[in-house]
């Protein structure tokens, strides 16, 4: 068989094999990441953990500091979003209650008193 043909076939097979290895078997891993880069399910669980902790210590400042690590400005909105997602996924009521309580408190205390109507 023509040696150039064999070289070409080998190269094509190698490219396919190399790409498969690089994408599936040993894909690039990311290290030294920050919480705002967490996968959605871990972000949601992070928010739940903050809500769980808040349900016991009622330290809204701490909760806000921890939530701010997720890189979102609207903290109450973020917690509410997670509460809704958990409701849709059928999570236990107590989880949703904790999230809702935190979202409500964040919304209440982060809003400056408005001028009298």
């Amino acid at each position, binding site marked *: 068989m023509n040696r150039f043909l064999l070289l070409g076939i080998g190269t094509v097979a190698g*490219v396919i094999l190399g790409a498969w290895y690089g994408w599936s078997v040993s894909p690039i891993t990311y290290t030294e990441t920050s919480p705002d880069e967490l996968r959605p399910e871990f972000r949601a669980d992070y928010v739940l953990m903050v809500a769980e902790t808040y349900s016991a210590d009622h330290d809204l400042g701490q909760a806000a500091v921890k939530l701010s690590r997720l890189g979102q400005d609207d903290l109450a909105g973020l917690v509410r979003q997670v509460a809704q997602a958990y409701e849709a996924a059928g999570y236990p009521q107590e989880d949703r209650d904790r999230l809702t309580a935190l979202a409500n408190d964040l919304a209440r205390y982060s809003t400056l008193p408005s001028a009298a109507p």
Partner: protein
Amino acid sequence: MKKFLPFLWAVVGLALGFAIGLGYAWVIQPAKFRGAEPTSLQPVYRGEYILLIASAYQATGNLEYARTRLALFPELGPDTLSSLAQQVVAAGGPQDAARGLARLSVVLREQTPSPSIAVALATPRTIPAARITLTPESTLAITIPFLPTATRTPTFAFTPTTNPEFVLVSKQQVCNPLIVPPLIQVIVKTADGKGVPGVQLRVQWEGGDAGFVTGMKPELSPGYADYTIQPGKIYQLTIGTGLTVVRDLTAPICPAATAILGGQTPVTGTGAGGPFTGSWRMEFEMR
């Protein structure tokens, strides 16, 4: 040889192609980043994440969630958790997290070990199916995070609704020459006699103070903790929220060890001849 020469070209092509394909997959078009896992966080955030797991456990007591979350960090065995709790206390970190870590350490140690424990929650969760695999514990590269102090609850602040009360039920000198160096030994129990891990203690003396926490030596009791004291110094022990204080603790002087041990001379210890320095043992009941 000549017969195999054409196939050599195929092998060369394969190697060349593999390198090109790998370069494409790793450099030019890497797999889409679908988000980070907690294990890939920077040490300071990883530490914060772990403390959050402990705080959430301390708040809810939900062991299933805590185990699922901890399973993401296979290096976090009971010993590592216990040592982390110590680090948090020593660094003046959040109390509830230290308590949670100590409690988790005790609870996980009490579990019957098996090669791997599949953790499945009763309700569907989006966290990937987690497995706790028993691996040799390794050093954990985390940093104990410090959150802004402006918003942090002061250490030992009294919150009547959540903080239990500790009552000193016994205080005795321990004249055992085998306990070297002398210690302040503390056992915290519930009314029904169960050891309570994760209770914060603080010793203060002229010119210094240090924190420690129960549950670090679960082989003795989940509610046990001790602190090494130096002869001649006067210590004050504070437990929990700071309302229960034992003052004027100095290492007691015990008579010759031979009397204590019924005529046997200790092989080790300070009492191998004359009087020696003893320890204190105090038992508290949590109410």
